[in-house]
């Protein structure tokens, strides 16, 4: 890991700031334009999820390396109510809020690696990685 940045997500202005920070690190990491767009879109969904469902949280933005490959890893954590049924939460269209239910399931499709850890009362951590091709 060569760089790390941590940002709080406490307002919708922070969601915009996360998008912009992820975009600039994605460019530095050497992701293609399409891959930049995918990871920024996933970051926007996950940051909004933290804000809407947990009242806020934070994100760590990391540049990771695997041999010659570089990638961008984002770790979204919150201390919200957690997700009781993770399988259900990953189904397209499933929502407990007012959204379209594409935030988690859609983000998973936009990244190369997706990891979700959550339990009721224990908050939620979503880790996503996008590798440069």
């Amino acid at each position, binding site marked *: 890991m060569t760089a790390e940045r941590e940002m709080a997500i406490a307002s*919708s*202005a922070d*969601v*915009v700031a996360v*998008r*912009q920070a992820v*975009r600039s690190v994605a460019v530095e990491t050497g992701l293609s*334009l*399409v891959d*930049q*767009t*995918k990871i*920024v*879109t996933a970051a*926007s*969904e996950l940051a*909004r999820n933290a804000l809407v469902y947990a009242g806020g949280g934070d994100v760590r933005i990391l540049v990771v390396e695997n041999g010659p490959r570089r990638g961008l890893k984002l770790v979204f954590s919150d201390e919200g109510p957690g997700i009781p049924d993770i399988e259900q939460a990953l189904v*397209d269209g499933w929502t407990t809020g007012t*959204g*379209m239910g*594409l*935030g988690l*399931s*859609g*983000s998973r*499709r*936009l990244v190369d690696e997706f990891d979700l850890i959550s339990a009721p009362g224990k908050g939620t951590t979503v880790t996503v990685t996008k590798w440069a091709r």
Partner: protein
Amino acid sequence: MQRVPILKLGDVLIVSIQIDLEDQGVLALQEDLADAVVDSGARGVIIDITAVEIVDSFIGRMLATIAAMCDMLDAQTVVVGMRPAVAITLVELGLSLGGVRTALNLEKGVALLDHIKGATP
């Protein structure tokens, strides 16, 4: 809060999103457009997203909501200028934007509106 200007050209309203909008700004645009359609009696609305780097599910829903809302107010909506990377990402995200008409650029959007209005006077 940032607000997006709404321009009027004949009976068409043109909105060009040039900034990274916060969610509140997105909702304000929806309301401002509904008011503007009614106040101006516009028959068409063009939303230019040439400068928009990402369309997530929130902005996607806004585009679909505006199209449905304008339809109820007797105006047709065309979204123009979507970047290729945005289109690819939207499809993978699972957002088809059904019911939202699109055109490649402003010129083609205007031509499409003329065609629609000509077909349904």
